[in-house]
C-alpha cells in the first residue's frame, strides 16, 4: 500500500505538556482521511509538524516519501495546506494573494485557480482584512488546490462555515479526489462531514492514537444492540461482557454498545438467553463518544 503520510514515534512537547506522544500513524495514498479527537488532543500540532511549521522533538514523519526533517522545502510544492486560521497578508487583495501564489509555486495552475474562484463567487478586488472568516477559508482552499497538490492538509476547514459554503467546500474536495486522486487529510469536529465523505478515520487523544481504521471496519467493529429479557436484565453478566463500551439496563430491556466481531458477540449474547435482540444503527458521533468515554474522556457524571 502506498502511503501519503507516515509518522514514526513522533514526539512533541510544549514546556511540560506532551502534545504528541510516540505517534505512529499511516495514511494510505488516495484516501480521504479524517482526523478526529477532543480539543487539545494534538490534531493541530500534528498537522503543523507535517507542514514543517513546527519541528518534532524526536521521531520522524514522511510526506509522499519525503522526511519532514528535510529542510529544503521542496515538498511544500506538492502539499496544499488550509490552516484553521488562514494566514494571509491583510492588506493584499484576493487577486494579489493569487499572484503571490503563482510566483511561489512552480506547479501553479492559473486556469484552475480562476475556475475555483468563480465557483466560490469570491470578490477578487476585496482586501483580505475585509473578508469574512468563511471567505478567507475559501481563498485559502482555492490557493491550496491551485498549486495542484498531491496531498491536501486541512485543519478544521469547515468550522464556522454556513451550510451552503460547507457543502460547496466538500463538493470541491470530492471533485479534486475523483479527478486527480489527491490524498486529503483533514481534522474536524464535524463527524457528519466525515461519515459522508471519509474512507479512513483516526482518533487522537492526549497525543496518542486511539484507532486508525477504514470507516467501514470501524462501523463493522462496533455494535449497538437492544436486548429484551424474560425477567429483569442481568446487569452483572452484561457488565462483564468482553469489549463492552457502554451499557444501560432498564427493567427487561438492556442497551449495550460493544466492540468485536459480530459472530463472536452474538454467541456471547446468546448465552445470556435474552428473549430477543436487535441490532441498532450506530452513527459515527455515537461511536466517537462511546470510544472516548472508554478512554476516560468526557463529563464526570
Amino acid at each position: 500500500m502506498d502511503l501519503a503520510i507516515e509518522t514514526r514515534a513522533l514526539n512533541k512537547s510544549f514546556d511540560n505538556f506532551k502534545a504528541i506522544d510516540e505517534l505512529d500513524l499511516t495514511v494510505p495514498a488516495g484516501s480521504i482521511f479524517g482526523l478526529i479527537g477532543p480539543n487539545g488532543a494534538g490534531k493541530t500540532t500534528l498537522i503543523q509538524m507535517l507542514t514543517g511549521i513546527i519541528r518534532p522533538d524526536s521521531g520522524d514523519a514522511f510526506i509522499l516519501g519525503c522526511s519532514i526533517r528535510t529542510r529544503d522545502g521542496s515538498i511544500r510544492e506538492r502539499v496544499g495546506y488550509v490552516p484553521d486560521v488562514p494566514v494571509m497578508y491583510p492588506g493584499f487583495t484576493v487577486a494579489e494573494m493569487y499572484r503571490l501564489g503563482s510566483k511561489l509555486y512552480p506547479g501553479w495552475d492559473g486556469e484552475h485557480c480562476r475556475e475555483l474562484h468563480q465557483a466560490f463567487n469570491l470578490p477578487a478586488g476585496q482586501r483580505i482584512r475585509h473578508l469574512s472568516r468563511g471567505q478567507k477559508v475559501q481563498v485559502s482552499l482555492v490557493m491550496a488546490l491551485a498549486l495542484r497538490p498531491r496531498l491536501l492538509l486541512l485543519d478544521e476547514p469547515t468550522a464556522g462555515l454556513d451550510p451552503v459554503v460547507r457543502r460547496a467546500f466538500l463538493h470541491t474536495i470530492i471533485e479534486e479526489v475523483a479527478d486527480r486522486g489527491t490524498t486529503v487529510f483533514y481534522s474536524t469536529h464535524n463527524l457528519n462531514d466525515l461519515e459522508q465523505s471519509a474512507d479512513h478515520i483516526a482518533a487522537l487523544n492526549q497525543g496518542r492514537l486511539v484507532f486508525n481504521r477504514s470507516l467501514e471496519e470501524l462501523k463493522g467493529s462496533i455494535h449497538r444492540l437492544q436486548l429484551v429479557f424474560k425477567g429483569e436484565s442481568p446487569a452483572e453478566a452484561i457488565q462483564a461482557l468482553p469489549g463492552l463500551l457502554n451499557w444501560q439496563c432498564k427493567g427487561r430491556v438492556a442497551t449495550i454498545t460493544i466492540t468485536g466481531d459480530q459472530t463472536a458477540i452474538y454467541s456471547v449474547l446468546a448465552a445470556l438467553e435474552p428473549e430477543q435482540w436487535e441490532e441498532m444503527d450506530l452513527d459515527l458521533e455515537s461511536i466517537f463518544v462511546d470510544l472516548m468515554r472508554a478512554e476516560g474522556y468526557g463529563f464526570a457524571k
Partner: protein
Amino acid sequence: MWLDINPRLSTPIYQQVVDGIKEAVARGILSPGERMPTVREIAAELSLNPNTIAKAYQKLEQEGVIETMRSRGTFVASRSSVDLNLARKKLTGLVDKVLVEAYHLGLERAEIEQLLAESLDNWVKRGGK
C-alpha cells in the same frame, strides 16, 4: 437524485449504493442499456467518497447488474436468462425472514399468500419490472 444514501446508518455506504442501484433497475428508473452516471458524477452530486462509489460499481459489475465497456462508459446490463437455482438460493433466505416475522405477527398461510400477491400487484402498478 434517485439514489438515497444515509451515511448515518450502520449499513456501509457502498452497500447502500449497490442496493439503491439494484432497486432503481428493478423499478425501471434505470433501463437496460442505459448509460450509468460516472463515479465522479455520483460522488460529486452526493458529496460521497469516490473510492466508495467505485467499490459499489465493482460489486455491481461482479453481480452482472452493470457492465463497463472500455472507453465508452458504464451501462445497465441487459437481463441475462434467469438462473433458477441461483435465484432460489438467494431468495429463499429473504423469504424465510418475512415468514419469521409473519409467524410472530400471528398471520395464517392464506393471509401471507394474499399479502405477497398484493405486494406483487402494487409493485407492477407502480411500474416495477
